[in-house]
C-alpha cells in the first residue's frame, strides 16, 4: 500500500468516522449539564464515609483502588520492558580489543569537543532547587487526601531531583544516588506495599483493599484510613519507576561522559 493510497483511504475513513461521531453527539448531554448519578453521590458521601476532603484521591485509592493497582502494574511492567530493551548488548560489555579501544577513543574525543560544561547559572539554580523539590514532592504525596495531589503527582515530582543533579554536571553524585539496587528496591517496595495494604483488608475483613485502619478526623494528615499509606506506596513506586526510566536512557551517555571526564 503506497503512501498516496494510504492517505486517501485514511481521509475517507476519517470522514466516515466524523460523520458517525457527530451523529452520536446528539445523544450526549449538552456541555455543562452533567447528569450522571455517580459523581453526585460520591461528592456528597465521600467526605463523611472516608473523612477525606479530596474526593478524586478517595476514588482513586479507595472506591476504585483495584483499578489503581492495575495501572501501577502497567507502569511497573513498562519500566521492566524498557530496561530490558535498552540493556547493554553482550558485545558492548565484553573485553574490548584494540580496534574497539580506538573507536571508543575517537567517539570520546568528538563528545568532548561537542559538549560544553554546565554554566554557573545552571549549576546554582539546579542545585539550589534540588532540596526544595524533594520536600515539595513529599508534601504533595502526603497531603493527597486533603488537597489536589497524591501518589502519582508527587511521585513524578520526586523523580526530578536526580535529573537536576545530572544537568548540573555532578555525574559521580548522579551515579551514586541512582544506583540500580537502590532504585529497584524503592520501586519494588512501593508496589509490594500497595498489595500488602490491600491484603490487610482481605485478612481483617474479607475484602481486598477494604479500608480497615481507623479513619481519623477530616482535615488532618492521618485521615482516610489506608489512603495515606497507599499514597506513599504509590509515590515510591512511581518515583522509582521514573528514575529508572531516566537512568536507562541516560546510561550510555553517562558512561561516555565519565570516561571523558577521567581522560581530561
Amino acid at each position, binding site marked *: 500500500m503506497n*503512501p498516496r493510497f*494510504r*492517505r486517501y483511504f*485514511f481521509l475517507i475513513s*476519517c470522514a466516515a*468516522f*466524523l460523520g458517525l*461521531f*457527530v451523529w452520536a*453527539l446528539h445523544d*450526549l*448531554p*449538552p*456541555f*455543562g*449539564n*452533567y447528569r*450522571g448519578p*455517580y*459523581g453526585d453521590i*460520591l*461528592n*456528597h458521601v*465521600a*467526605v*463523611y464515609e472516608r473523612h477525606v*476532603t*479530596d*474526593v*478524586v484521591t*478517595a*476514588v*482513586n485509592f479507595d472506591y*476504585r483502588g483495584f*483499578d*489503581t493497582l492495575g*495501572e501501577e502494574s*502497567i*507502569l511497573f511492567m*513498562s*519500566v521492566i*520492558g*524498557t530496561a530490558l*530493551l*535498552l540493556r547493554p548488548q553482550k558485545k558492548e560489555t565484553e573485553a574490548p580489543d584494540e580496534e574497539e579501544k580506538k573507536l571508543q577513543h575517537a567517539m570520546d574525543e568528538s563528545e568532548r569537543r561537542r559538549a560544553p560544561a554546565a554554566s554557573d547559572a545552571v549549576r546554582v539554580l539546579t542545585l539550589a532547587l534540588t532540596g526544595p523539590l524533594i520536600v515539595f514532592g513529599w508534601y504533595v504525596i502526603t497531603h493527597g487526601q*486533603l*488537597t*489536589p495531589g*497524591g501518589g*502519582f*503527582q508527587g511521585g*513524578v515530582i520526586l523523580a526530578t531531583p536526580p535529573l537536576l543533579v545530572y544537568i548540573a554536571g555532578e555525574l559521580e553524585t548522579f551515579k551514586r544516588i541512582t544506583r540500580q539496587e537502590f532504585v529497584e528496591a524503592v520501586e519494588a517496595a512501593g508496589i509490594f506495599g500497595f498489595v500488602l495494604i490491600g491484603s490487610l483488608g482481605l485478612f481483617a475483613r474479607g475484602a481486598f483493599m477494604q479500608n480497615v485502619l481507623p479513619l481519623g478526623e477530616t*482535615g488532618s494528615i492521618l485521615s482516610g484510613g489506608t489512603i495515606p499509606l497507599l499514597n506513599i506506596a504509590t509515590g515510591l513506586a*512511581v518515583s522509582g*519507576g*521514573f528514575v529508572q*526510566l531516566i537512568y*536507562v*536512557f541516560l546510561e550510555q551517555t553517562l558512561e561516555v561522559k565519565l570516561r571523558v571526564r577521567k581522560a581530561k
Partner: protein
Amino acid sequence: MTLFPYLVAAWLFCIGLYGVVTSRNFIHLVMCLAVVQSSTYVLLLSIGYRTGGLPPVFAGVPVGAPAVDPVVQALMLTDVVVEATVVALLLSLAVQVHKGTGTLNPDHLRELKG
C-alpha cells in the same frame, strides 16, 4: 456551541491519527500518538463538567456545593502517568529498530532482511 469541546476532541483524534498514518519518522509517530491520547482527555473532561461547578475538593467548602464529576478525573489521573510509560516503551523500541536496521522510517521497514 455546546458541542464545541466534543468537536475539538474529535479533531485532535483525527489530526493525530493522520500524523500517525502519514509519518516518515518513528519519533514523530510517537508524538502524534501522544496527541491522540490527549483527545481522550478532552472528551472525558467535557463529559464530566458542570457549569458553575467547583473542583471536587471540599477543604473549606461545604459539601453540598455544586462540583464537577470526580470519577472522570480519577480515570484521567492514572491515564496521564501510564501514557508516559507507554511512550517510553515505544521509544525504546524505536532505538532498537534503529540499531537493527539503521532507519527510522516506518515505510522502509517493510523490507526486512533475514
